[in-house]
C-alpha cells in the first residue's frame, strides 16, 4: 500500500537536484546509448583510417549517406509507435521516385512542383495503407506486405525495362542532391529539419502523444475517446509522404531510377527503428532514436570495409546488432519494471 504513517499529509514530490538529475536522465535514455555506440564506431574507424571522417568526402558522406534512411526511419517509427508497421515504404519510395522521373521526362514541370506531387503521391499511398488498417481492422503487417507487392508491381508494370538516367533529371535537382550548405550536405539538412519537426510533433503535440497512447494500449485509447482511426491514418500518411520525399532524395542523390529502387529498404527502416529503441509493439521509443539507429546502421555499412572486414559480412553484423538491441531493450525494460515494483514495495 502506498500511504505511510510517518510522512505527514503527503505533499507534492520534492523538487530534485536539477543538474544531477538531468545528467542521470540523459544517461538513462536509450538514445544516449545509440549515440555513444555511433560515436565509438566513428572514433574507431577514423583511428584506423583518418579519411573516414577527416576528408571532404568522408565528412560529407557521414551525414549524406544516411539521409534517405533517416527519412524512412522517422516515418516508420511513427507507425510502429502506434502499434503498426509499414512494410510498403520501399515500394512507395520506388514508385514515387519513378513518378518524379517520369514527370521530369514527360512534362517539364518545375522541380518544386514535382517534389510536391511526389510527396503527395507518397501520402496517398500511405493513406491507402492506413485506411485498410484502420477500417478493415486487419493487421498492418499483412496489409503493408500486400501493398509492398502491389506498389512495386505497379511501378514495374509502368516502368517496364525503362530506366531514367541522370541526363533526364534537371541538373538543378542533381546539384542540390550533391551540394552542401555550411559544409553540411543539403540532403542532410533536409533530414535534420524533418527530424526536428518530427521530434516536436511526437513530443509536444497532442497528435504525437496520442500516437503513443494508441500504441501503448489501444483499448484504453478507446476508453479515453481518442480518435484512433484518424491517428492511424495520419501515421501511415506521414510515413507514406516521407517515403515519397525519400524517393525524391534518392533521385537527387543517385540520379538514376531503375526498377529495383528501394527494394528491401523497408526492412532496413524497421531495423533502424528497432535498433533505435522503438518497441515493435508500440507505445515507446522516439523518432530521434530511430534516426540514430539509421545513422548507426548506415555508418556500420560504410565502416566495415575500412576496418578490414569484408563487406560480405556487413549484413551479419547488422543482424547481430538488431538482435543485440532488442535483447538489451528487454533487459532494461525488465530492470525498469523490477525497479518500479521494488519502489512500490518500499513505499
Amino acid at each position, binding site marked *: 500500500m502506498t500511504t505511510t504513517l510517518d510522512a505527514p499529509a503527503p505533499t507534492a514530490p520534492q523538487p530534485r537536484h536539477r543538474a544531477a538529475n538531468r545528467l542521470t536522465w540523459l544517461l538513462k535514455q536509450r538514445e544516449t546509448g545509440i549515440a555513444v555506440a555511433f560515436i565509438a564506431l566513428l572514433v574507431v574507424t577514423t583511428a584506423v583510417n583518418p579519411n573516414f571522417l577527416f576528408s571532404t568526402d568522408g565528412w560529407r558522406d557521414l551525414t549524406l549517406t544516411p539521409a534517405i534512411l533517416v527519412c524512412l526511419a522517422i516515418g516508420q517509427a511513427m507507425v510502429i509507435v502506434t502499434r503498426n508497421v509499414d512494410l510498403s515504404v520501399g515500394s512507395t519510395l520506388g514508385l514515387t521516385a519513378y513518378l518524379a522521373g517520369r514527370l521530369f521526362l514527360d512534362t517539364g514541370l518545375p522541380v518544386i512542383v514535382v517534389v510536391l506531387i511526389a510527396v503527395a503521391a507518397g501520402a496517398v499511398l500511405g493513406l491507402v495503407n492506413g485506411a485498410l488498417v484502420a477500417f478493415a481492422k486487419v493487421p498492418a503487417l499483412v496489409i503493408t506486405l500486400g501493398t509492398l507487392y502491389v506498389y512495386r508491381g505497379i511501378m514495374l508494370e509502368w516502368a517496364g525495362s525503362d530506366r531514367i538516367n541522370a541526363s533526364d533529371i534537371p541538373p538543378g535537382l542533381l546539384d542540390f542532391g550533391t551540394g552542401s550548405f555550411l559544409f553540411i550536405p543539403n540532403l542532410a539538412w533536409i533530414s535534420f529539419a524533418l527530424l526536428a519537426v518530427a521530434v516536436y510533433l511526437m513530443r509536444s503535440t497532442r497528435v504525437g502523444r496520442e500516437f503513443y497512447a494508441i500504441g501503448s494500449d489501444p483499448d484504453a485509447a478507446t*476508453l479515453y475517446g481518442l480518435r484512433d482511426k484518424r491517428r492511424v491514418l495520419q501515421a501511415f500518411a506521414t510515413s507514406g509522404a516521407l517515403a515519397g520525399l525519400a524517393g525524391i532524395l534518392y533521385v537527387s542523390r543517385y540520379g538514376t531510377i531503375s526498377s529495383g529502387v528501394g527494394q528491401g529498404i523497408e526492412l532496413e527502416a524497421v531495423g533502424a527503428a528497432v535498433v533505435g529503441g522503438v518497441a515493435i509493439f508500440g507505445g515507446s521509443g522516439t523518432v530521434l532514436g530511430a534516426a540514430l539507429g539509421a545513422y548507426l546502421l548506415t555508418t556500420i555499412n560504410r565502416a566495415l570495409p575500412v576496418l578490414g572486414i569484408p563487406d560480405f559480412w556487413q549484413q551479419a553484423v547488422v543482424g547481430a546488432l538488431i538482435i543485440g538491441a532488442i535483447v538489451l531493450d528487454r533487459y532494461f525494460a525488465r530492470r525498469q519494471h523490477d525497479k*518500479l515494483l521494488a519502489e512500490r514495495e518500499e513505499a
Partner: protein
Amino acid sequence: MPDTPAALELRDVAKSFGPVRALRSGSLRVEAGSIHALVGENGAGKSTLVKIVAGLYRRDAGDYLLAGTSVDFRNTAEAKQAGVAVIYQEPTLFPDLSVTENIFMGRQPTNRWGRIDRAAMRTEVVELFARLGVPIEPDRPTEGLSIADQQLIEIAKALSLDAKVLIMDEPTAALSGNEVERLMTVARTLRDQGCAVVFISHRFDEVFALCDTITVMRDGAYISTDPIADVTEDEIVRRLVGREVSDLYPKLEATVGKPLLEVRGLTRTGLFQDISLTVREGEIVGLAGLVGAGRSEVAQAIFGVDPYESGEVTLDGQPVPPGDPRRAIEMGLAFVPEDRRQHGLVLDAPISRNITLPTSGRLARTGLISTGIENRSAADWAARLEVKAATLDTLAGTLSGGNQQKVVLAKWLSTQPKVLIIDEPTRGIDVGTKSEVHRLLSTLAQEGLGILMISSELPEVLGMADRVIVLSEGHQTAELSRAEATPETVMRAATAHHSTTLNVSEAS
C-alpha cells in the same frame, strides 16, 4: 416526479452482447448535489450501465438524459465534453506514458502552436495529488504502479475534468482505509459543489456512510430507488439477491478422509510468504482474504502456472513438480481460475475443444485425436454439468457467464481430479447458477474430492467451507474451523498483519 430535471437520468436502458443480455431495463435518476449509490450483485449490469453513460457502449433501447436533454454519445470524448467523468472498474492507463500524460491524454492544454504546455499540466497534477493526498511522482510511467495507485490516478483524472456527473465504479475495491477516507472527503466536496456523484460498491458500510440515495439493480433490471435513511442493510440485501440467502449455500455432509493436497512453506517474495495448508478427501477448504491478498497467486503457484521460490507441494504423497501444469493435471490436480475469460476458456474455440483440451493426450488413440472422439467426451461431461447449449461447436465465448463456468468445470472434472482448486467459483454468475455451482461443489466433496476454494464473498466462504484459511498481504494469518469462522474472525484475520499502515485501523 420532481420538476427540475435530474443531472443524469436513464430510463429503461437495454444492452445486449450477442446472446448475453447484460442490461434489460436499467434506470437511474441522479440529482445534482447528491451522492447516489448503485448496488447489485456481480453481473447485475452496473458496469454496463456505466459504460453506456460514458459513451463507450451505445444503448440498444431506452432514454438517456443529461440535465433534461436527451443525448446519444458516439464515443467517450463526447461524453467527457458534456461533463461526464467516469472511473471504470478496471483501471485503464497507458503503461508507457507518464502519470501526468495519462491524466491529460486527449485534452492536454496547448498553446497557439499546438505545443503541449507540460508545465501547466504538471502544476495541475501536483495540485490534484495534494488534494487527494497522493504521493505519486507525476513524471514516472504508470507501468508498475499498484492497482490502488492506478485507481487513485483514475480518480485524479476524473477530478481534473471538473465534471458535472462523476461515476465511480467500485473505486474503493483496492484501496486501504486511509485512502477510502480521503476519497470520501473528495466525493463530499464535489457533491457540495453541485456535482452529481454515482458511487458503485459492494461494501455496504461505505455506501451507508457516504451516499444519500440508493438504487438497487438485479439481473440487468432496475429494482428500486430510496433515500438511504429509509432503508436498512438487510432490506437492500434482500432486494439485491431476490430470494432467501440460505438457499445459496446448500452444504452437504461429507466424510473427511486422508490428506490429499499438502502445501509446505510456499514462498514467492513480494507476493506470498510461507504458506502451508492441507486439503483432505471430502473437504472444502476456504481461502479467504481481501482482494490483492495473494490468494490467486498461491493457487497458481500450487498448480504450476506460476513459479515459486521455496516450499513444496505434494498430492497424495507424491511431490508435484513446480512449473509443470501438465504433470499436475496428470497427478490429479485441477484448477478453475479466477479470470474465466482470460485464463479459464479459449473463448474463440468451441465448447468441445475447451472441455477436452487438458485431456486430449488421454483421449488420443495411437497418438491421434479427432473431432468425433472429442465430441463424445465433451457431450458426456457437458451433460453431467447441464451446460445449456444447443451444439458442441458453439464458441465458448458466446455462452453466458454461468454456462461458461460450467464448461470450465466440465473441462476439469473430465480430468478425473483428486483435488479441485477453484478461484472465485461464482464471480460474475447469476443467482440461479450460483446455487447450482455451490450444490455441485458440495456433491463433489461428498464424492471424495478435496476442494480448495478461494472466494472474496464472505457468505460463500462461511456457507461452503469446512475449514477457512485466511491470507493477508501474502501472509497466512488464520486457520479457522467451520465453527470458529464468523464474519468477525475472518475479517480480523484478513486485515491483520498489515505492516505499518494497518496498526492504525486496529488501534482505532
